[in-house]
C-alpha cells in the first residue's frame, strides 16, 4: 500500500474480521459527495457502459452509493479520491463491484482495494459469486483481478467509447473457493 492516508468505510459494515483490516471508519454522504466531484466526469462513460446508474450530482450520487444494499469504501491516495463499491445483485447471494477514481481502477493500489472488497463479499457477506467489468485498457486492474482469483469470463466487445473509439469491457467473475490473497 503506497498511500499515507486512512481508508474510509461507508455503509457501516463491521462484520466479523472487518476490524482487523486496514483502519476503517464510517464515511458520511458529505464525504462521498465531495469525492464524487472529482470522479463523476472522468468515470461518466465507463459508468454508463458498466451499468452503474450513479447520478452525476454529488449529493444524489452519495445517496445512491449508500442505498439499496450498496456498500462504498472511500480512500484517498496522494489526494486522489477512490471509491470501491459493492452491490448485492437480484440473483441470490451474488454481487458486483466497481472501483472508481479520476483514473478509474488503473492505479497502483487496485490490488489492495480489490482484496478488501472480495474478502468482504465472499468471506463476510457469504456471496457465492462476485463480478467486475474491467476495461481492457486498465491493465493493472485486470492483473489485480487475476491475482485475487477472478477469472475472465466474457468480453463485451466495443462496449465503452473512450478517446474517440470503442473499446472492450472484460467481465471478471470470482467464486469464493477461487479467492486468494494477492
Amino acid at each position, binding site marked *: 500500500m503506497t498511500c499515507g492516508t486512512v481508508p474510509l468505510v461507508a455503509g457501516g459494515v463491521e462484520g466479523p474480521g472487518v476490524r482487523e483490516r486496514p483502519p476503517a471508519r464510517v464515511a458520511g454522504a458529505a464525504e462521498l459527495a465531495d469525492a464524487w466531484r472529482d470522479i463523476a466526469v472522468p468515470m*461518466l*462513460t465507463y459508468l*454508463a*457502459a458498466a*451499468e452503474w*446508474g450513479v447520478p452525476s450530482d454529488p449529493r444524489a450520487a452519495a445517496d445512491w452509493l449508500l442505498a439499496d444494499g450498496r456498500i462504498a469504501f472511500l480512500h484517498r491516495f496522494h489526494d486522489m479520491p477512490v471509491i470501491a463499491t459493492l452491490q448485492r445483485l437480484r*440473483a*441470490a447471494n*451474488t454481487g458486483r463491484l466497481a472501483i472508481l477514481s479520476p483514473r478509474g481502477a488503473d492505479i497502483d493500489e487496485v490490488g489492495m482495494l480489490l482484496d478488501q472488497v472480495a474478502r468482504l463479499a465472499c468471506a463476510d457477506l457469504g456471496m*457465492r*459469486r462476485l*463480478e467486475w467489468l474491467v476495461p481492457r485498457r486498465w491493465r493493472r486492474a485486470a492483473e489485480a483481478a487475476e491475482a485475487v482469483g477472478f*477469472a*475472465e*469470463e*466474457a*468480453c*463485451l*466487445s*466495443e*462496449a*465503452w*467509447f473512450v478517446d474517440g473509439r*470503442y473499446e472492450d469491457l472484460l*467481465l471478471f*467473475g470470482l*467464486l469464493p473457493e477461487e479467492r486468494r490473497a494477492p
Partner: protein
Amino acid sequence: MTPATVFAADGVRIRAFLPRDLDAFARFRADPVSTAQAYGSVLMPETMDDVRRPLDVSAANGDFMLWAWADDNDDAIGFTTLSGIDRVNRTLWTGSAVLDPALRGRGVGSTGRRLVLDCVFNEMDFRRIYGEFGAFNEASRRSHQKMGAEVVGARRRAYFISGRYYDAVVYTVQRERFNALFPPDPDRCLRSLSFGR
C-alpha cells in the same frame, strides 16, 4: 400513424406493454418452468403489485423499457425488456420470452426478437446489444443464433434453479451483422413521401 412494417411481421406486432397485459404476464411469472428459463431462477409468489413493478419502472426509469409482442387480436403473447440502456455508448441489454408455453417452438420468439432488434438498431440507432441465456436453454441459443448472436463468454454459476447452479451464456449482436442477415428497408417510413424522388 406508426408504419406497420417497422413493428409487425408474421402475425406479431411490437407495441407498448399495457395494463391489460398484466394478467398474462402474471401467469408467466407464476410458472416456474417459464421463469427458470427466462430469469435463471424461480420467482417466489407475487402480488399484482409485484407483477406491475416492471411496468412502473419502465415508466419512471430512462434505462429500462418493457415492450409487448401482440398477436392479430392485439393480445400479448410475448415481451421484451430493454435494460441497461446506455445512450452514451449506444448499447443495451435485451431479454425476451413467449408468455404462453403452448406458443413456444413455433417461431414466435424469433419473430419478436427480430422485430425488436430491427427497431433497436435501425430506428433507435443502437450499435450493439448484449444478452444472456441459461446454458441449458438450447431453444434460446438457436433463436439468438438466427439473429446473428455471437457468444462472448459465460457468467459461471450465475443461475440457481432447484438446488443446482448453472452458467449464463453471454452473447452480443452487432448491428452490421444483424442487418446483413435482415437488411432493413431504408424507405419503409418515408415511402409515401415524395421529397422530389
